């Protein structure tokens, strides 16, 4: 016979003002199984918990119902009180009479009291069917996978590795470095991007705890927190990295020219190439889409000039498997394609370029040697118009959000333009100047005052060609006049857009993403680096637009999360998971189909007691099951049940009132 104890909380005045707590307690006492019921001012306080502990012992309770605030609030607290009294903590049920009664029915005390009584009745009924459950512990593989080798991935990998945890860093392109490697100088201090980034890149390559897998992609991720198994495709590079010295003879002699992605297509690279001089690893790869040897079997020059014989045209993609415990996703961003801006003549005029193209031009190692030039005729531009919010904050043609970094990098571009071309002038069309950050406003001031950049508040409405130059028309809203600038070059501060393969990656990892393709954090404020899937973390622009300081901060935060996850030898897991009653299981495997975590497998058991014939039944992997109950609801023979939310418990609740 069940012996239930009911503990009703006043929650100060929170409950007591709107629910007649003593009446509720009296009502609870009338329930047959309730052997003890009492109210107290603050059940969650130490004396309150002590009351529960004492009553458990004194009245030999078999389950406990606390009628107080939401179980999402204090369930853990009371469970602890139960186990302190030597009782299984899962014999607790919480009746939520605050959020679900006293706070929402403040005008009707009678109804609120009745409802509170009913909620307690339901909790009591449920608790009668509660079973003793025990926390599950799962082993952890202490190795992290970092996807993406930009500054976010580099920082996360270094931080995790510095905690002496092995890291597998997977980068899609031949070299790590990412977008930051493409930048010239960085705001707000104007330190050279290469100077601060390359030492970190070298650290990654030489770190004993980092396994760098360049030119690779994650193909599959199986398992669950602490016990993932990743399949990683190492794309064929056709170059033996072990013997290659990176001397460069091959790419100097290669006859095939391809637009250079690293320089935004401004110049060309060869079909065998290393993306940029400071690349890590500084080994070339052959671009199979363009190499004539691989396409048509003609050429073979690189193999001839390679003294080490490192070129291997027969190399194949290779799948490697790594067991890992946690993942940091840092895939970064793409630039939004501005072609919907037809009124700007994007695509029709060569002298309209994107900010990243400008960045490559003013970069010392860029295709134009650090001097901006007009793509149409190669002349050095004098009057340069920068247009901000191209794509950003534009529901009609682009995206709704603010890309966050354009205000700052456009100010930087104005300064850099002034540095590179002294007799030039920058015109900046802006809507707002968003310079919130340490040293940011000062930096914008520097652009305005030191370089004399002309800031014009208004969106540009039209660009048209007049002779050699482009006429840029917009309103100067401060002046209240339409202005027109004759420009040699127009630079569009195009919006940041998530890396295009993010949705595919998200599906592969089993995490969610928003309508643009940014990967979703578990909570926008309190869990900004976690995803909803345990053991998978986010860093950098894969989650939202960010500048370098924010990206690095988030990467370090993700690393700290990984280190925290790996702090113990095992992971503790809620025991509220599915279990199979093999007696009833028909082996139809519908549960296997619907399980979102592939937590259900099949096994063969004897057909009957001592029988030699076998039959198939379902089996739940304890470590993988997250306890959603999808399998329970679809199981027609009711062979699967969910601990903590069993059919019996829920039916008891339904029929108790």
């Amino acid at each position, binding site marked *: 016979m069940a012996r239930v104890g009911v503990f009703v909380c006043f929650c100060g005045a929170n409950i007591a003002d709107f629910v007649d707590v003593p009446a509720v307690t009296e009502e609870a006492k009338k329930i047959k199984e309730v052997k003890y019921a009492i109210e107290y001012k603050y059940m969650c306080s130490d004396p309150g918990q002590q009351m529960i502990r004492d009553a458990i012992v004194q009245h030999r309770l078999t389950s406990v119902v606390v009628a107080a605030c939401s179980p999402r609030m204090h369930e853990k607290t009371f469970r602890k009180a139960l186990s302190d009294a030597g009782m299984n903590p899962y014999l607790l049920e919480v009746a939520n009479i605050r959020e679900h009664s006293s706070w929402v*029915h403040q005008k009707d005390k009678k109804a609120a009291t009745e409802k509170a009584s009913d909620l307690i009745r339901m909790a009591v009924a449920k608790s009668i069917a509660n079973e003793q459950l025990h926390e599950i512990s799962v082993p952890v593989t202490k190795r992290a996978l970092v996807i993406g080798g930009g500054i976010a991935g580099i920082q996360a990998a270094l931080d995790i590795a510095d905690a002496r945890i092995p890291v597998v860093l997977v980068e899609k392109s031949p070299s790590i470095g990412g977008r930051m490697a493409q930048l010239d100088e960085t705001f707000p201090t104007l330190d050279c991007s290469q100077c601060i980034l390359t030492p970190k890149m070298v650290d990654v390559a030489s770190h004993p705890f980092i396994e760098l897998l360049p030119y690779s992609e994650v193909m599959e991720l199986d398992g669950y927190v602490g016990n993932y198994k990743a399949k990683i495709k190492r794309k064929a590079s056709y170059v033996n990295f072990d013997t290659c010295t990176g001397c460069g003879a091959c790419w100097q002699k290669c006859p095939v020219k391809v637009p250079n992605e690293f320089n935004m297509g401004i110049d060309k690279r060869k079909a065998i190439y290393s993306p940029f001089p400071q690349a890590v690893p500084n080994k070339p790869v052959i671009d199979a889409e363009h190499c004539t040897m691989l396409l048509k079997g003609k050429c073979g020059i690189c193999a001839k000039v390679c003294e080490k014989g490192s070129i291997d045209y027969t190399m194949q993609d290779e799948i490697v498997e790594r067991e890992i415990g946690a993942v940091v996703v840092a895939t970064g961003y793409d630039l939004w394609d501005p072609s919907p801006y037809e009124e700007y003549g994007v695509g029709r005029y060569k002298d309209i370029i994107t900010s990243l193209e400008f960045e490559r031009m003013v970069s010392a190692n860029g295709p134009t040697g650090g001097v901006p030039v007009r793509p149409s005729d190669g002349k050095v531009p004098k009057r340069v118009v920068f247009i901000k919010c191209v794509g950003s904050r534009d529901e009609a043609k682009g995206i709704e959000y603010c890309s966050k970094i354009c205000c700052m990098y456009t100010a930087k571009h104005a300064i850099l333009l002034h540095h590179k071309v002294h007799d030039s002038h920058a015109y900046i069309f802006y809507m707002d100047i968003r310079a919130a950050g340490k040293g940011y406003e000062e930096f914008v001031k520097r652009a305005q005052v030191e370089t004399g950049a002309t800031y014009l508040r208004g969106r540009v409405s039209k660009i048209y060609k007049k002779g050699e130059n482009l006429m840029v028309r917009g309103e100067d809203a401060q002046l209240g006049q339409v202005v027109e600038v004759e420009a040699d070059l127009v630079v569009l501060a195009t919006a940041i857009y998530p890396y295009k393969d993010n949705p595919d990656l998200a599906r592969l990892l089993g995490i969610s993403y928003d309508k643009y393709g940014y990967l979703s954090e578990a909570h926008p404020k309190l869990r900004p680096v976690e995803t909803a899937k345990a053991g998978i973390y986010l860093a950098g622009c894969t989650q939202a637009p960010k500048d370098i300081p924010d990206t690095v901060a988030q990467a370090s935060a993700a690393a700290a999360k990984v280190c925290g996850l790996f702090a113990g030898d095992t992971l503790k897991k809620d025991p509220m998971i599915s279990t199979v009653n093999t007696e009833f299981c028909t082996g139809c495997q519908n549960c296997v189909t619907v399980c979102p*975590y592939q937590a259900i497998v099949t096994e063969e058991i004897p057909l009957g007691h001592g029988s030699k014939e076998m039959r198939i039944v379902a089996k739940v992997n304890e470590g993988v099951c997250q306890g959603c109950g*999808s399998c329970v609801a679809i199981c027609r023979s009711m062979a699967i049940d969910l601990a903590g939310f069993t059919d019996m418990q829920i039916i008891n609740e339904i029929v108790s*009132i």
Partner: protein
Amino acid sequence: MEAEIKEKIVSMEKPHMEAPPDWQPVIMGILCNWCSYAGSDLTGTSRIQYPPNIRIIRVPCSSRVDPWFIIKSLQTIADGVLISGCHPGDCHYISGNYYARRRFLVTKKLLNFVGFHENRVQFSWVSAAEGAKFAKVVTKVTEDIRKLGPLHLYKKENS
């Protein structure tokens, strides 16, 4: 016009059954833990008021809801059932609410076919942030069911 509609609604199911004067509908609410239950908690913390007729059961996910919880509720005390889960795409368990959505539609249509007014069983997506929406949904469902009157169909005899 409105009175006409109201009359029509009330005259459905069992027109000869009248509600006792002090009758209050009972609504069984089954909420998923991660979105709707959290949302209903937020309704509380925001002190948004709604009718006290709902009795809430917590389940981990809307996909945990077996259609016969609905049938069982309607056969016992409940005059109506509200089931609420995460918005499509927001399911804490990735896809649970999509499976649930299919079952709900079929269950609703089947119940309606055998004689339950379609407002007896309602579903909603309420996120953890939609405290106000939860109150609105509960108010709507309560009012709908109040209009329909007490449920007399296939009730458990010994209740």
